[in-house]
């Protein structure tokens, strides 16, 4: 037995002396399959991004543009200088929050497609509370505004969460509808009750004490860029989400319900209350995204202040496979695409809309993981006639 073990560790592939059909064979086969699966699972996001860029090139070629020029311009615009990197981080900030929001929902088996709406409400709370807290020291006002933004986001997710838990109304439709409602509420407030004097419908500018400092104000060795402390908060949030999922009862229950509702229920976990808690927590994270945009970038609220950051958060979460740290990396990638898109349009004359196509293809391939798995296995089968391919 021990002899067998050591041998299998040295040579993991199925050896001819193990008779097919026996338990031993099946066991080894399963082990090998698992390691293949694992490799593929880790490789999928990278392969997906590569395929997406290929498909993006097809569109560029069809439009008569050079993909090489386009992608290199995009790269320059995203990483070419400290300024460009700052722009990338600036855009990665709300995407990290939104990605964490969607990822947490997915872990609990919930698809928070309406993170955008919660983001709007977080932004609204920041714009409102931020002005009220004028005159307080930053140590007081900044945490309070962030908390207000998180609460606003959670509150906006509460009704869909309740409907899901009590009636089974699908959160994809309800949170989506709440997104439209949130947009109209913000539109009404910035044109009406909260409108600042002037021609543009927008709220009053936040006082200096309610603004997130720039990254170079905290880390003086950096050149001044538009990137702000929100990015650090977002990274900290990724750690918090990771900790919650891994070490707390709340996270455990969320994962249990997301994994198998029936089993969780049988194990004594309340599916209804876990659903409500998880979607509200997801909403809070999305609220922080809007909050950070107002406190760190715009300093005020206006109509359409987010053009789909919450939706891009879905792509971020999927690419990250719902891993909190993966979310940071995926958010930086999408932030880079968004930061580089302008340069790409300017220098290579390719429509910025290509970025949507790239994101869509990435989501599609991650969802259809089997495309990648199948391709890899097909490739392996050609190399060696292995029982794995069956």
């Amino acid at each position, binding site marked *: 037995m021990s002899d067998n073990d050591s041998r299998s560790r040295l040579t993991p592939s199925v050896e001819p002396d193990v008779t097919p059909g026996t338990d031993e064979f099946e066991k080894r086969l399963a082990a090998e399959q698992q390691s293949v699966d694992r490799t593929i699972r880790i490789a999928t996001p990278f392969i997906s991004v590569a395929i997406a860029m290929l498909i993006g090139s097809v*569109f560029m070629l069809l439009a008569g543009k050079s993909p090489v020029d386009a992608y290199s311009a995009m790269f320059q615009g995203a990483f070419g200088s400290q300024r460009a990197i700052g722009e990338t981080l600036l855009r990665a900030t709300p995407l990290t929050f939104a990605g964490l929001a969607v990822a947490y929902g997915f872990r609990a088996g919930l698809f928070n*497609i309406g993170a955008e709406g919660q983001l709007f409400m977080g932004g609204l709370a920041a714009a409102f509370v931020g002005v009220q807290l004028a005159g307080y020291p930053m140590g007081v006002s900044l945490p309070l505004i962030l908390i207000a933004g998180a609460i606003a986001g959670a509150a906006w997710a509460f009704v869909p969460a309740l409907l899901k838990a009590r009636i089974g109304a699908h959160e994809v439709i*309800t949170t989506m509808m709440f997104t439209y409602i949130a947009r109209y*509420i913000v539109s*009404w407030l910035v044109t009406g009750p909260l409108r600042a004097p002037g021609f543009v419908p927008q709220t009053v500018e936040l006082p200096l004490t309610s603004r997130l400092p720039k990254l170079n104000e905290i880390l003086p060795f950096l050149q001044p860029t538009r990137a702000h402390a929100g990015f650090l908060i977002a990274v900290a949030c990724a750690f918090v989400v990771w900790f919650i999922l891994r070490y707390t009862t709340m996270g455990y229950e969320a994962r249990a319900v997301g994994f198998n509702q029936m089993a969780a229920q049988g194990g004594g976990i309340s599916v209804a209350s876990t659903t409500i808690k998880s979607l509200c927590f997801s909403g809070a994270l999305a609220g922080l995204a809007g909050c950070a945009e107002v406190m760190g970038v715009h300093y005020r609220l206006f109509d359409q202040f987010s053009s789909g950051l919450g939706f891009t958060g879905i792509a971020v979460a999927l690419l990250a496979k719902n891993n909190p740290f993966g979310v940071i990396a995926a958010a930086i990638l999408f932030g880079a695409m968004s930061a580089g898109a302008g340069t790409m349009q300017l220098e290579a004359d390719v*429509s910025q809309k290509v970025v949507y196509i790239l*994101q869509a293809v990435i989501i*599609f391939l991650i*969802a*259809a993981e089997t495309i990648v798995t199948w391709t890899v296995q097909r490739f392996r089968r050609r190399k060696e006639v292995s029982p794995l391919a069956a």
Partner: protein
Amino acid sequence: MLREILTPELFASAVRLATPIAITAAGAAICERSGVVNIALEGLMLVASFAAVATTLLTGNVWLGVAAAVLAATTFAALHAWASINLRSDQVVSGTAINLLALGVTGFLMETMFGHPGSTDSVQTIPPVFDFPHGGPGILGTIWTWIDVVFLSYTPLVYVGMFLAVFLTWAMYRTRWGLRLRALGEHPRAADTVGVSVLGGRWVAVLISGAMAGLAGANLTLEQVGTFTENMTNGRGFIALAANIFGRWVPGGAYLASLLFGFADALQFKLQLFSDVIKIPPQFFLMLPYLLTVIVLAGVMGRAVGPAAVGKPYKEKG
């Protein structure tokens, strides 16, 4: 004032505004009954809208525009079918990807073909089928005006949509195809056991829902708006999904449920005309259809139970 609001034109505009949602919702019913969730309807309608306007602008023929809309939406639906049926992807995620793809592809083609973002040039919209004179004064004249406006004032695709809703309802309950379709969504294993092709049946259903979303896009652009604007579907695909639930997964029911949303929309337009009398900001009226969707889903009409196997990928044995 109520007399000024509750005119026959209000009901006619309710039907008109409901039509893109209603046609899509009837298709959604077919798709979900087969066991496939189609969140992509929003994107399918958007792609169809672009194809309709672009083709009409290029060829000068609206009917080619309608055909292109149906073709484009069905092609994108095939992508969803392939991912969710053959590759067994998460159907909601695949749908989300297609929605984003639709946004990107239409925006990209728009800028590439027309040189600018925003809206395309406008096309000549399809005129109503009939053109009867309104009734004169008196009771009979008023009755005729109501009949004329509420039933006989529409463009061709509105009638096509009504016919399809009735036809698909009949097909779902009175044909062998319909029985099999319902079996696919309730108990695919049982259907498979008696020799019904689960994958094939689901493919057909998804393609039908795509074609319907295509007609809806054509109706929206070629019979109503006359131009394509980026992201112009504005949540109609999602509202159609809600209407489908409200209509209990029956094409005809989904169609009727959509009329409610159309009415909310029509009322919203109408009430904006009275903004000096009714002091309510326009945004609240614009919210109405979305708010109504939530209220409907909140189960005002009781808990809705969908097909048992909806959203679950099926793996054929063998």
